């Protein structure tokens, strides 16, 4: 009797519905069998803004990594003939006709008729052509591969190309920004990694142990949460001895930024651990005699790795903005190191906006990077949320 009903039920469903559900069925099978990460990737890919932002970040990372190749000149090379010079935009056409090769106009030094100061002005009759993959200043690619090939240079070795102008010492803003990208992004990465490790340890201990250990850790976390963070960073940064080398300062900065970045993530890890502490599979592992670290890393953490990643991505902007702010007021990285914040130190006054606005170009990078990290973080969060569906 039951068999008959079931047969009827099956044969009764209409042809149209069936065809559709066969297609949908395939899709669904693929969906169910995909791993958690594949699913997250599928959902993330559909988030257009996040994909654009991720591309921007990737580009920035590449620019920074291959700074020696991309930047035509070193971050401290000077062009004394072109101080506070305006950006030179490569042209294909000018009053003397067009060319298939991009060129810029050469620079001649003139005396300002009023102030009698020497100023550099473009000479519209002098063309200097760009060459690509040309030999120039010797550098070490990635810091250890000797090379003198640069992405682009000027044909005439006596002239220098300043895409984004120069500062008061005649240093190329484009090259400096590219090098600064490496510094600022790497500080962010290391800072985030340090706070990640701290968060893992502190949150892990609090969440796994619970009880009074948790109470003490909660108190300490609360303290770090209430102290205004930039003034706190400033205090630590101010304590760096003046005679430290730039490398020492660099690592001290990453340490300072990483040192206080953990409370949010630690909190998340703690509360997640506390909530799954009593789940059967964790108790089973504990009864089976697994050591705490193994239980945490093998059984407890994997269940919310995606959330941790989201939190990590979201904490990047704070790192970058903090580094920029500290360096901006002279308490962070110090010249000759270049970072976005160090570069912006030269742009502290309104006069700069009026006279040499190109010194603000590094700020565009800061805004782009922070924006991109935020958008990618949001995209990842949506993608990691099991309740948001693929469609």
């Amino acid at each position, binding site marked *: 009797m039951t068999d008959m009903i079931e047969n009827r039920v099956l044969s009764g469903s209409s042809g149209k519905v069936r065809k559709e559900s066969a297609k949908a069925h395939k899709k669904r099978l693929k969906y169910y069998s995909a791993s958690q990460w594949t699913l997250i990737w599928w959902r993330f890919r559909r988030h257009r803004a996040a994909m654009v932002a991720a591309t921007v970040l990737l580009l920035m990372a590449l620019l920074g990594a291959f700074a020696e190749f991309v930047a035509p000149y070193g971050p401290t090379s000077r062009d004394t003939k072109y101080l506070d010079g305006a950006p030179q935009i490569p042209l294909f056409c000018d009053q003397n006709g067009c060319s298939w090769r991009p060129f810029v106009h050469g620079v001649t030094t003139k005396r300002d008729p009023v102030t009698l100061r020497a100023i550099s002005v473009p000479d519209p009759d002098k063309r200097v052509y760009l060459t690509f993959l040309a030999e120039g200043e010797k550098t070490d690619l990635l810091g250890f591969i000797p090379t003198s090939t640069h992405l682009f240079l000027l044909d005439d070795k006596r002239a220098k190309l300043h895409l984004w102008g120069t500062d008061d010492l005649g240093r190329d803003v484009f090259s400096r920004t590219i090098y600064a990208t490496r510094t600022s992004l790497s500080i962010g990465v290391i800072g985030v990694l340090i706070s990640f490790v701290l968060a893992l340890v502190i949150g892990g201990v609090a969440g796994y142990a619970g009880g009074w250990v948790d109470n003490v850790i909660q108190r300490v976390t609360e303290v770090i949460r209430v102290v205004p963070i*930039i*003034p*706190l960073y400033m205090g630590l940064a101010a304590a760096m001895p003046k005679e430290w080398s730039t490398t020492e300062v660099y690592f001290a900065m990453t340490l300072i930024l990483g040192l206080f970045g953990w409370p949010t993530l630690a909190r998340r890890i703690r509360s997640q651990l506390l909530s799954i502490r009593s789940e059967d599979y964790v108790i089973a592992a504990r009864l089976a005699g697994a050591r705490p670290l193994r239980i945490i890393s093998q059984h407890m953490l994997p269940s919310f790795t995606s959330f941790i990643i989201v939190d990590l991505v979201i904490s990047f902007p704070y790192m970058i903005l903090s580094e920029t702010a500290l360096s901006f*007021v002279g308490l962070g990285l110090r010249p000759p190191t270049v970072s976005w914040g160090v570069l912006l130190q030269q742009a502290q*006054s309104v006069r*700069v*906006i009026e006279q040499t606005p190109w010194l*603000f170009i590094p700020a565009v990078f*800061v805004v782009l990077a922070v924006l991109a990290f935020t958008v990618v973080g949001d995209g990842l969060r949506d993608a990691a949320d099991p309740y948001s569906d693929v469609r």
Partner: protein
Amino acid sequence: MLRFTLERLVGMIVTMVLVSMMVFLIMEIPPGDYADRYAFRKYSGTGIAITEADIEAIRHDFGLDKPMVLRYVDWIGNIVLHGDFGQAFAFETDVIKVIGDKAWLTMAILFGTLLLTYLVSIPIGIYAAVRRASAADYGLTIFSYLGLALPNFLLALIMLYFANLRFGADIGGLFSAGMADASWSFAKVWDLIKHLWLPAFVLAWSAVAYQIQTIRATMSDELNKLSVTAARARGVPETRLLIKYPARLAINPVVSTIGFDVNRIFSELPIVAVVLGLTELGELLLNAYLDLDMYVAGAILLMLTFVIVVMNFISDILLAWLDPRIKLGNN
């Protein structure tokens, strides 16, 4: 409610004690100590050579040769019992005299910024949630992303630039020339208010961006609640319904993050102060750090944190008063 208040009060005191310890540690980190720097300041340029013995004498005078724990107890004891924050060597006077009026100016900036933040973000956040997925909503989302990404010093510079174009040179700082040293009067307060909007605007910018997102999210959740449909089913008019039911609950997260906003404002203050030429605690703190004038820095850090902790306390109490469920949950 009384028990709830007392509990929070005790928690606040414990936190402050721990904070003071941390601040003291930070004051101790810079190489050399107060005596070195004091001696250097006092004798530099005088041609007198400083000997180790001189420094030792100073050290003894100030009690710097005592163990750290005792020095901490002295320091915090003097602050709590006598309101004495120690010596500001760069100014050769008491820390409290250096800080003086600047504390009140800082509070004026703080409350000006908070007021502006909430006046702008609450109505806009609610509007964005009600008009979800409209052009205005998308515009606001883009704005709030930008608000979070634009470094405040950059915004300060941009604002300063436009303000200069529009209002002439006298726009930075907190007072007009000549007013700064005048004694307090109605005219001076008015002058302060006229100057306050610029730092308040710059500092409120990212807080507004953040709060709009929070309010929009909670308001959207609240709008989907059954209680809203139920109220509508009783014939409550739409505007009144929005204000009385979802909006009333959507401001809870705002209230609960007041301390967080204060923290952010104080965090940004030293940097914005540099650009805008503000003469308040943020600027003083930055200079104290740059001069390694650690007693001044410590005092300011402690004061700022104290304000944040008090604001956290107020926000807890306010929240318990706003949301009757909380009192029950905690008792």
